[in-house]
């Protein structure tokens, strides 16, 4: 089944096609949500709500751009709506004690658990902006609109997030990170 056929079948509320779409895209979207939301229950709630919106508004996808990108945007918007209910992104909380549980084996690449461990150690604001800018490719202007903050807040929180991440990696002697002198 091609992507076009899948979309057409889902538009007609074909249940098998809907399940196929969910099975196809939910692992990636679940992985995305792991970077934003710590609790499994919260991730599942957001995932179900986001895919409900995808399947009930699928006729709005006009084929401009990637279908996966369209789904991802809906999933991320849903995650941000969830976070905004609980977190004020204008408030930046600095954490002093960085005690990252780290596996002793030094690796050249980050493993899945390493990513989660590092992201979980960041405050919600840093983590969200880091995710949106670094991993989703949003511009600061877009992040400011999505989180209802100023562009400068977005920029400054990203710098702080990167600094914090670097400190954590240095603390565990992670080899893939340049030293402070090198990074300038």
């Amino acid at each position: 089944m091609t992507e076009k056929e899948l979309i057409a079948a889902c538009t007609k509320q074909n249940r098998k096609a809907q399940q196929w779409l969910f099975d196809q895209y939910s692992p990636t979207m679940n992985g995305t949500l792991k970077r934003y939301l710590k609790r499994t229950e919260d991730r599942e709630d957001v995932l179900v709500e986001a895919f409900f919106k995808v399947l009930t508004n699928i006729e709005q996808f006009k084929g401009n751009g990637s279908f996966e990108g369209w789904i991802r945007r809906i999933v991320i918007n849903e995650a941000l709506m969830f976070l905004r209910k609980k977190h004020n992104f204008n408030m930046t909380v600095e954490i002093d004690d960085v005690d990252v549980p780290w596996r002793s084996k030094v690796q050249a690449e980050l493993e899945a658990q390493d990513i989660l461990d590092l992201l979980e150690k960041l405050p919600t604001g840093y983590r969200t902006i880091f995710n949106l800018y670094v991993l989703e490719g949003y511009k600061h202007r877009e992040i400011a609109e999505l989180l209802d903050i100023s562009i400068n807040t977005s920029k400054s929180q990203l710098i702080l997030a990167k600094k914090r991440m670097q400190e954590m990696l240095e603390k565990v002697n992670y080899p893939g990170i340049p030293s402070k002198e090198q990074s300038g």
Partner: protein
Amino acid sequence: MKNNFFQLNRSKDQHGLPNQRKSRIIKMKQSKDIFDLFRESKHKLDEAPNPQAWRRLEKRLDTRRATRGGSLYRIMAMAAGVLLLIGVFSLLPALDQNSPQEDVMALNHPPSEMEDLVVDPADSDQNIIKVVEFSRQYQDRMVQPIEEGSSAKKLVPSNQLNTRIQNADTPGDTLAKQKSEG
């Protein structure tokens, strides 16, 4: 640049490298940006959700389908009701001409103030005149109810009143006495 780096890295591994060149490669690898580090590894987090997520989603989709079906039925029922009302109101004037509905309504809801009836002398229908007269007398009685008189007085029908007055000369006639007293 990234591809070249990995190609270089692989080729050197295959052929073996002097220590000096090896350390240069490690240095290049170390200077990798923290952002790239995350970008390259982000798909490692992909994982199928719990199977109950699909069951929850399916349940919501079923509910929506049922609600939409129900709302369509409701809309159709409402439309039918409106059409029925329009039909009834359009038929009302036709029914009105053939039935004394207005008169019935008037009887059920009399006006708060009664209008004085005027008898047209030109009206030749004597029955109507009698009805009007009767209703006027009835009204007057309601406005001025019969006074409670003394035990010596006697009530008689009004149509016999004139006869009694003519016989007022007769001694002992109670009515005549009453009149003369009045």
